[in-house]
């Protein structure tokens, strides 16, 4: 903080308390909640400028949809991209100031929190009028529903899957059509790829990015039969041997140099860059990354389900939901945009065309999905993956200062038995999930 602000010496300041108490009465007039327009179902395209926020990993996806909308509508959507790390704080400060944008995208894991705390406008009546309501991605709808009221609709599905570089597989003498099906195989493959030289590494992960870590390692635990969170999302169950073995494997790969040293400090913004440059053999990432990868002689992208220790597969079904903020003055215009993003035009000709998964199950089998087997893999995973739900998810798991960050950093980069480390941190995670801390 500003040390340059000089401070003078002061002898006493007793007056303060007296004057301070005078303000106590003022405190009573804090503003209450906003009027809900739950019964309003209108949508308007009248040339209004609609503001929207999204987090940086979703930026390209959102912008692609917005460009298509702006071309064909009188309303114009203006997107502000906010760094993923500071998204929660930014929404927090803006929500308290009632300065949220009209349309607010939110990581699905934050959605239960925002729905329960009054960040979003109740969209129940509007969503009920959608003819395809039943086919909207169920996991997303569940996170955006609170007390039987719907506060958001799916924006994008970003599920985690193993990405592997077929070019490096071939170079290392591996079969490019045989991705690893167990974590043991994954380790062996990574080791072989590490041997090809030319700056290539077998594996990569965002070691300082708590969201990246849970997104890619939890499916390994799930696929091996372990759990991380109880049903209600109020207690951590990660202190189990299965999870211990997963992080022990990560530590081993890091220590043996199968992973670039920079993984330890990779806090998210650049965690896909090395794979995109063709320098990484295997890396679990989100499905939306596929749109951004440019294939060439050094990079041929294959995707596969994330395996467990000895088999099985799973996925973290993440992504974002879209809602209208509770302080928006353009709810009808915002809904015009949001409902359009769910239309067949948008889902097939924009979303699927750009190699993304549609958020409507009735459109999953579209022409683009039929052409690209990787999309078919994603669609299959969407059905079997998991989406953990907890009101305090964001501050517990995604915040770089939250208890999960130190847990996973210690488990992967620390010393001592990873399972014991998980055991030691488990209490702090549960404490945070239960609404304290």
């Amino acid at each position, binding site marked *: *903080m500003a040390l340059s602000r000089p401070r003078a010496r*002061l002898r006493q300041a007793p007056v303060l308390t007296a004057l301070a108490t005078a303000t106590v009465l003022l405190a009573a007039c804090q503003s209450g909640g906003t009027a809900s327009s739950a019964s309003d179902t209108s949508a308007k395209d009248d040339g209004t400028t609609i503001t929207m926020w999204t987090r940086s990993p979703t930026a*390209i996806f959102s912008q692609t949809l917005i460009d298509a909308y702006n071309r064909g509508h009188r309303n114009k959507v203006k997107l502000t991209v906010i760094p993923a790390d500071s998204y929660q704080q930014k929404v927090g400060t803006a929500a*308290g100031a009632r300065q949220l944008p009209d349309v607010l995208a939110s990581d699905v894991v934050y959605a239960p929190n925002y729905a329960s705390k009054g960040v979003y406008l109740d969209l129940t009546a509007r969503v009920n009028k959608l003819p395809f309501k039943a086919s909207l991605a169920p996991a997303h709808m569940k996170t955006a529903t609170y007390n039987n009221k719907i506060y958001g609709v799916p924006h994008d599905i970003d599920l985690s899957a193993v990405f592997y570089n077929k070019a490096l597989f071939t170079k290392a003498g591996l079969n490019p059509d045989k991705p690893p099906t167990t974590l043991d195989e994954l380790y062996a493959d990574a080791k072989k790829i590490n041997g090809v030289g030319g700056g290539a590494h077998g594996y990569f992960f965002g070691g300082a990015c708590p969201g990246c870590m849970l997104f890619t390692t939890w499916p390994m635990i799930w696929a091996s039969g372990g759990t991380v969170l109880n049903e209600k999302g109020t207690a951590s169950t990660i202190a189990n041997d299965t999870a211990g073995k997963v992080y022990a494997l990560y530590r081993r790969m890091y220590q043996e140099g199968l992973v670039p040293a920079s993984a330890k400090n990779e806090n998210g913004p650049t965690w896909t860059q090395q794979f995109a440059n063709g320098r990484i053999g295997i890396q679990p990432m989100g499905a939306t990354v596929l749109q951004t990868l440019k294939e060439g002689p050094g990079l041929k992208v294959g995707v596969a389900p994330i395996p467990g220790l000895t088999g099985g597969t799973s996925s973290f079904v993440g992504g974002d939901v879209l809602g209208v903020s509770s302080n928006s003055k353009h709810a009808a215009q915002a809904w015009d945009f949001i409902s359009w993003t769910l239309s067949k035009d948008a889902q097939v000709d924009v979303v699927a065309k750009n190699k993304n998964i549609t958020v409507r199950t009735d459109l999953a089998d579209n022409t683009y999905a039929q052409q690209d087997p990787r999309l078919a893999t994603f669609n299959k995973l969407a059905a079997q993956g998991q989406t953990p739900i907890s009101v305090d998810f964001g501050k517990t798991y995604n915040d770089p200062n939250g208890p999960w960050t130190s847990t996973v950093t210690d488990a992967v980069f620390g010393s001592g038995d990873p399972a014991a480390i998980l055991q030691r941190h488990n209490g702090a995670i549960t404490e945070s999930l239960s609404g304290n801390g």
Partner: protein
Amino acid sequence: MSRPRHRAARSAGFYSTSTVLAVLFLFPMVWTLFSSVHGRQASGRGNGWGIDDYKRLFHYGSGLPAYLLNTTVVALITVCVTVVVTTLGGYAVARFDFPGKNVLFLVTLAILMVPYATILVPLYVFLGWIGLQNSLIGLGLVLAMFQLPFGLFMMRNSFEALPVELEEAALIDGCTPTGVLRRVLLRGVAPGMVTVALFAFLAAWNEFVAPLIFLTDGAKFTLPVALFNLEAGNFGSVDFGALQSGVVTAAVPCVAVFLLLQRYYVRGFTSGALKG
């Protein structure tokens, strides 16, 4: 060792030590300046000189002109409010007796005792009540408030240092105190006002945490907050070139103003306002 030789050795020691240290102190700034105009990112080619970093910075987010304008507006509000309020207040406290004078003086100085960061949360709530959240004016006023103790002390001392006789004569001649202030005293306290303005400017221009909390609309961000967003990265990479050009852009006005007015800066230290 004879005296002149001794002195020569000492001064050689001084110059070599100081030069090494000076290089160390200047190095980070010079390197940042250099890499903002040199290299692959800056030139847009393999290597060499170029201003591509500045071009990308120019178009980043709401655009560099918007961020510079916001920062300037906040700094101007802070400087103007601080100077006007502490000049009037300093005059009143230095030259007159009025009820509540000591309380006012003490409470103003108490601002220094209250750690700046701790009061930001209630200020955030309170600015919301009075409609000054997400407002450059609100931010400028808050930053000015934090400058009041130093400013008031500085201005009170400036007024007290002026001879009373000058003023008495003018008063007897029929001037009102306002007339005296305007025609006689302002010239005398002008250096003090420059010092107060300089401290307020440097603080406001560089402030980070208050705009981070108070400003929510991306188009209203000040330069330090916009640069922080740039650092946090977008689209899979951090644009270090643009970041370095941003650091240079943010630092140049401060360094320039300081070099021009350093005499007045030092006055802030020697006037006793610091040690209070």
